[in-house]
């Protein structure tokens, strides 16, 4: 069936409260225009969002799980990298 040839897209939605687009899931569509319309129908029907991004899944390059030890473990004992030693002024939002 032809439908299995439709490319996969990742959907990111910005909710009313949020500033960032969050990954919601994926769907099939023939092109970006249809992917946005499908995302509207599949992922925003319960008022989840005010903005949609779609990215073709093949365009996303991911880190490899096998490399996670060398990638992420070295950071675990370097607590001084966290900005927790600073006092933030009240005026500073969205941190």
């Amino acid at each position: 069936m032809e439908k299995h040839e439709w490319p996969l897209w990742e959907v990111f939605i910005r909710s009313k409260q949020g500033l960032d687009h969050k990954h919601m899931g994926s769907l099939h569509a023939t092109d970006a225009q249809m992917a946005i319309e499908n995302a509207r129908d599949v992922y925003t029907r319960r008022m989840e969002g005010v903005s949609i991004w779609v990215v073709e899944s093949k365009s996303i390059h991911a880190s490899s799980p096998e490399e996670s030890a060398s990638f992420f473990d070295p950071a675990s004992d370097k607590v001084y990298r966290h900005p927790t030693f600073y006092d933030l002024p009240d005026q500073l939002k969205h941190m």
Partner: protein
Amino acid sequence: MVANKDLLFYLIHLADNALVAGHRNSEWTGHGPILEQDIALSNIALDLIGQSRNFYQYAAEISADGSTEDSLAYLRDARAYENCLLVEQPKGDWACTIAKQFFFSTYQYYLYQHLQQSRDATIAAIAEKSVKEVAYHLRWSGEWMIRLGDGTDESHVRMQQAIDSLWPFTGELFIGADYELNLAKVNISVDPSILLTQFNNKINSVLNEATLNLPANVWMQTGGKHGVHSEHLGYLLAEMQFLQRAYPGATW
């Protein structure tokens, strides 16, 4: 003074159009060609059924004869239905469903745009809410017209066949029934003939992009607005009304 009867007829007409169109689309639920489009069409079905409920509720209110939105939807026979013939046509293949939705949404879009200025505040409010939904239905169906018309050889042929078979049911949309024209005189409804130019312009611009053509010299079918329907409506109502007919007053 506007006869209440005209208003009642008109509300039922608007409601029946939306209900029958919505019910036809709901026949695709669980059977769509792909999950995403199944949901898209089900959303459109729900929008339309929601519109019909608004009109039925208002009709029940002014009828003051004990009618409810449910009795109006489930307990009238085909002869009492005033929907246009276009919406009762079978769902057919995907091309038929798309062409039908595109023609109907184009009509509904311009109709609701005008009804927003209706002197009847309830009709104006329903139109204002609904026109946003219909704008999306129009965009969605128009995109599909272009995709399929300007797609593969087979999709082009099927789309053209759908247009040829459904176009004869569009003429009726623009011929005002007596209740429509009476209410148009007092700015409650719209004389639908004034929508024809906008309708044709929109249809032509999309069909042009879709490399599709309208059939020439077509005999236009009429009758729906006065309750004279094609055979298809009876089957649709038989299925839709079965539960309330077999188990009167059933709820769940």
